């Protein structure tokens, strides 16, 4: 029970760090201006509303995922669920890295 909690705790911290790292990389790779990682909400939509990214930005994120995390996406449909929010993206990166 105790070990489980600890694992959960570490996972939370880890995911938080990954989310922050992803925010910085999204800002860098998309050349977003006048915005800091702290201003990006974990759950806010990346596309449509929120940062208002578009399909070409999504492709830029595909390149970023390959460059920093070694995750290769050949079909944009594969990445679509991951691009819902920073939290979804972090979970996707985590899953693909450990799988």
């Amino acid at each position: 029970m105790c070990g489980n909690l600890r694992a959960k705790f570490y996972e939370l911290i880890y995911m938080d760090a990954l989310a922050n790292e992803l925010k910085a990389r999204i800002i860098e790779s998309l050349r977003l201006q006048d915005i800091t990682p702290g201003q990006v909400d974990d759950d806010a939509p990346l596309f449509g509303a929120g940062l208002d990214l578009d399909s070409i930005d999504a492709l830029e994120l595909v390149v970023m995922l390959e460059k920093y995390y070694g995750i290769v996406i050949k079909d944009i449909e594969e990445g679509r669920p991951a691009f819902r929010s920073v939290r979804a993206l972090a979970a996707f990166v985590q899953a693909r890295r450990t799988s």
Partner: protein
Amino acid sequence: MAARSPVITGLGIVAAPGRGVGAIWDAIRGGTSGLKPLTLFASPRYGPVLTGEAPHDLIALGAPVRGSRSDQLGWLAAREAIAAAEIDFKNCAERAGVVLGCSVGGSFDSERFLTTLIKRGKMHPRPTRFHECVSVVDLVADEFGLLGPSLAVATACSSGALAIATAAEMIQAGEADVMLAGGADSLSRMTWGGFHSLLLVDAAGCRPFDAGRAGTSLGEGAGVLVLEAEESARRRGAKVLARLSGWGASCDAHHATAPHPEGAGAVAAMQAALRRAGLASSVINYVNAHGTGTRDNDLAESKALKTVFGERVPPVSSTKRFFGHALAASGAIEAVVCVEALRRQEIPPNPGFTTLDPAIGLEPVTALRSASLTHVMSNSFGFGGNNAVLIFSQPETPVLTRAPRPTPVAVTGIGVVGPGAVGVREIEPPLPAGTVMAHSCGALADAALLTPNQRRRFCRLVQMALIAARRGHAPDSAQRLAVAMGTGFGCLEEGAVFIENSISKDEQEPMPSRFPGSVHNAAAAQIAIDLGARALNSAPTAGEISFESALWQGMSQLATDEADAALVGAVDELNKYPLAIGSRWGFWNEQTRPGEGAMVASLARSEKTAAPLARVTTVRLGRYRRPFDAAREADWIAAVVDLKNVDMVLSGAKGWPALDENYTAVVTALSKRAGRTLEYQTYKQLCGEFHAASAFGFSVAVDLVRQGKRGVLLYTLSPRGAKAICCIQP
């Protein structure tokens, strides 16, 4: 008013499945795809994916040595078409012109220069001489002796079809009797890397309309039609192959690369073509679809087909798997296919299709079949939501199209970015260090007009164009808005960043967001999205007369009532490559300084405008004879301009020194005809030398007219043979 539509008297084609109309039809009949693993260049990241390559050695096939790969492809197709039409231009050179779609231009050859520069640190700029998209047009015009209007249309994948439409309009308007019309594009690392970075390529070869489709296949080639006024064809007893009975253009005004999800723009273009031909959708017997094999295009196109044709969609096929997607050439190649289909009464199949996609619910023709064909339609859609549709008919069908109603056009707004201040420009790596004095617009002062996402996404050239368009757009001007934005070099900066990165990193870490912005029609497309302009959207490119070409296209939309208002203009940007290469070749000096800028003017029909800034009473395009004959040029101008109402000539002199004498001689000859000395002014001392500079000249002419001039002639020559005259009056 109605007029007989132009006819087709010759065809030429070179593409992956073979060279010549006969060879191509043999491949189509045999169901043989022309796709093979890429060998034209090495692709470290994507590998030898299935691609539609033309023969490597085009010179061995007779193509001239001078010219890029695209130019040579265009020349080969033009030669075949001219031979088939059995036409001799010697006696009708002035009445014969050329409009070709081209979007890759000399990129393939320029990449050799870049590779040497980046990998070996050596600067050998010779291969860049034919970089411009208009290069193929100049080559074809010069080699075959054409002196009529000449320009290229660079609207990405719809270029070839839009070029044919533009040529048809020129014939309808009486600007020419014969036009070579089509498109030519070679493969290049730029478009290769670009389409791959957008995840739009299916390594297994494209499967248009199939449930498992996963992208397109790239290809290359050229298609050329001899388009002729029916009168002219009859006069010389030419064999008529088919009739171009309708053409239509539209813009999605939706997104830089993705089609409108419901195919709204595609519907508008098909309906415009039917309307122009005066045909009901029910008489169309076959549709050659754009059918690239990408998920989005094929779905949107199928929805559009159902909207236009309802329950009874005629037989449809995409021939992309035969050729690969030859970009600007594809619309022209498919036009050749459509004319042959009519002639042979056979419907070409859609190789690559096996499984019906329930979302599409449309099964293309899977095997060649005989059919009674009277009217066939060809669809072409491009980046920027740029759509062009052509309808070809049996020669004997009496199809009438709407005749243009030429009219003076009112200028209702003007927006200018530039001229820039003269200052030192440093040349950056990978080029050898150096400096050039240039007229630079610097940091764009009005960038605040744009949203943060527009500033982030759009390259400098597109930003300049958008700012000029926002300033020049007369907001009360009407619903159906056309955009024609000329450019000489297009988005050089954006393209350079993309391809430098691709070459230096061997295609790793691609830059997908840089590719869509690198197409020549990026500016026109973004203006359309910004202002909701859904009529024609064009990016003509014709060197120094790029602006006048845009002006012609915009005015033609008003004359044919395809638009209520038009935004016309031109834009070009400073970039280290022309700065450095121009320095090396000794172009830049005290007199000739490079410049940049954008100008957009709002146009509306004169009779519908109460208080215009000025009126454009004439615009005419053509080519001059070499050696230059000033008296002949003055005749050419006096034939369309009443010199009584002209006070001044405003010329493109003080750019290329070799042209200055020609300009002066023509002004002298015109003064002689007018019986008084016409005032003579130039504008390039103010804005510098760049291809779009005559757009700035136009804004100066409008100002001069507002200050009391009764008429200003804007006269422009390109060092490669093109010329334009434009008359601006109160």
